């Protein structure tokens, strides 16, 4: 057997061993410029982040408009409205897993950062729900609402508004491709007058079995 054969056999063997070995997992930090990954099967940060930003921006913009009913504080600025953010309800076809709590925190933080509202601490809301044993979806029943607001008031957190967030989705199927429209709706109810404001943001997303699916289904010639 020639030396060349030995060396080629050795190279092939080394290659097989190298290719055949298991790899390790690595992580890296993303900068603010890096775009979110686009989920291949379900919605992720690429959907939820813009939904939250848009819906909150719309709601705050409307609420910051000058209003005759809005009381003015001693400093000459409108008094901040006290808002109780009850929670995020998921009515989508997808499970959002660990995103739910993050959505709550994102919305809560955005409200806090605005100058129009004074949100109630999440822990106080949870404690009031626990104490009253009320379901979040039953708070609009007048007796339940009175009980809930009285508990918060007793704990030093009187509220003017209840805020509900709801995620919904609509699915359209075309052979192996699917389009899913994600909608985040923010419902804000004035406890004193009963008036409500509603703002929503929508993102549409397509899921395809092949890489060409998006081009095939979403081109101007395809109608």
């Amino acid at each position: 057997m020639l030396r060349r054969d030995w060396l080629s056999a050795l190279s092939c063997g080394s290659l097989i061993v190298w290719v055949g070995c298991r790899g390790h997992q690595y992580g890296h930090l993303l900068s603010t410029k890096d775009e979110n990954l686009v989920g291949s099967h379900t919605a992720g940060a690429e959907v939820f982040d813009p939904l939250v930003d848009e819906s909150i921006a719309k709601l705050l913009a409307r609420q910051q408009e000058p209003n005759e009913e809005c009381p003015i504080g001693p400093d000459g600025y409108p008094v901040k409205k006290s808002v109780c953010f009850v929670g995020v309800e998921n009515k989508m076809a997808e499970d959002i897993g660990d995103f739910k709590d993050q959505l709550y925190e994102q919305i809560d933080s955005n409200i806090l950062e605005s100058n129009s509202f004074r949100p109630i601490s999440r822990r106080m809301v949870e404690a009031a729900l626990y104490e009253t044993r009320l379901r979040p979806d039953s708070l609009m029943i007048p007796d339940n609402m009175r009980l809930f607001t009285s508990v918060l008031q007793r704990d030093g957190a009187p509220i003017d508004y209840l805020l509900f967030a709801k995620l919904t989705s609509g699915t359209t199927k075309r052979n192996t491709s699917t389009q899913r429209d994600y909608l985040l709706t923010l419902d804000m109810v004035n406890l004193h007058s009963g008036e409500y404001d509603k703002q929503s943001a929508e993102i549409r997303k397509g899921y395809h079995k092949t890489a060409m699916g998006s081009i095939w289904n979403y081109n101007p010639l395809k109608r």
Partner: protein
Amino acid sequence: MRVPRHIGSSAPCAFWFLVIAICGLGSGCSTHAKRIALPRSLFYEGQIEQCRAELEKLQKSHRHDRDVANLDLAIVDLVDGRNRQSEMRLKEVRERFDYLEQTSVTEQTVSMWTDDSARSYAGEDYEKILLRVYLALASLMGDGVDAESYTLQIQEKHDAILSRLGQEQEPAVEAGEDVDEGASVSDGTPLPATVPLPPSPVAVAPTESKAPYRGIPIGFYLRGMLREQTHQNYDDALRSYRIASELIPDSMPLRWDIERVQNSVHSNPGHGVVYVFAMVGRGPYKVEVAELPTSDALLIADRIVSAVGKYSVPPTIAPIKVPAVMVPPSEIDSVFVTVDGQRIGPTTSIADIGLLAEATFLASRNTIVARAVARRVIKKATVVTAKSSMGSNQWTSLGMDVAGVAWEATEAADTRCWGLLPRDIQVLRVETPTGTRSIRLHPSLMGQNLGAGQAIDVPVYDGRNTYVLAWFPDAHGNCKVQCSESLPSSSPVTLRLGAGN
């Protein structure tokens, strides 16, 4: 190293044949099933310390058994109340199994000249889910801080397994759909949590489905249980209970759970909830069996090849060995729960591990047998190639056939598995007034209580869950019952409770 320019052709072949044969002989005949027999019997006899010592010894002496021994040690720790230690072991194996999910061509190649035990064991699919289930249970028995994360990981792993198997994802459950009319309560009043339950319903056998893995209800059940406890995320709880209910359509308690999270609340004021998780029966394990029909067929084939070929092929005298799943018969089918002397009901199945193990094995059996046949063919081909290269005479050929048969006889089936799992994981939810409650658990068969059972005092907190973990491997053996340490620190209402209680 200087490589000679020319090497004789027969010498290296003989050398490599010798090396491979020695490697094969080195793999040995001992199986994991034989090595685990003693620790397993010690565990069921209640000799926990001796069992732990044996498992630790096995972990050190057999490199390829390390992970499964660690899993068994995690169960031993959990039974012994060492929740933190158990959690650490399970986390370690979780990382290992995730790493070993990648294919190693090197290991696969080596296993073709030895046997399947040369491959690292990455766990069966159901074991990967149960690993995370036990992580959640271990956490709940301790501070409960990570329990919710583990339930999310169960779901993540479930999705990954389905994706890998290329199965069509189950259509997502639409929240708000009507459930079975038979379980509905028209006026929306809370369903009593202490309704006497019917005898344990048998989970739908996964074998009824083509797919070897459909999901394990307990993972979704745990998620629903924890989300319901928040008093806020009833929609998440509903979604999880529905998936669990789809996996066990006959389970009446799951229908009650669905009804409760749709129309009622976690618990009435002044009440808390006790979840009894019962590990019922002795779990499945793998044994080595001879695959005789395939061995006979291969013997006929190699005799034909020997008759028509220039060189003889080692005869298939040693039978092909493959693993088989054994599910020991169970003396009990449920655990009957009594609270402060009041009969509540039996636990019901939420993860039938015996069925899961059998279904998983049946799905992979053909692959295992095919691999064993391919291994034999490769070994026989190696012997024939060696004979051909060496130009062996009759006596050398006979000697090499004998060596080949010996090489084949050293094969052992891969019987590694998580050996100390129970046959069935069962659960019962009891809503009860707050305070310390005396809970008695009786092993039960066909509705008849067997033995005196075991009692434990359980603290019940207002609006919160308390967890009881019970081990009943058989009717009269050593049962162990323990209760979660205290109110989980992650509780959103800990501060209020602390002030109120």
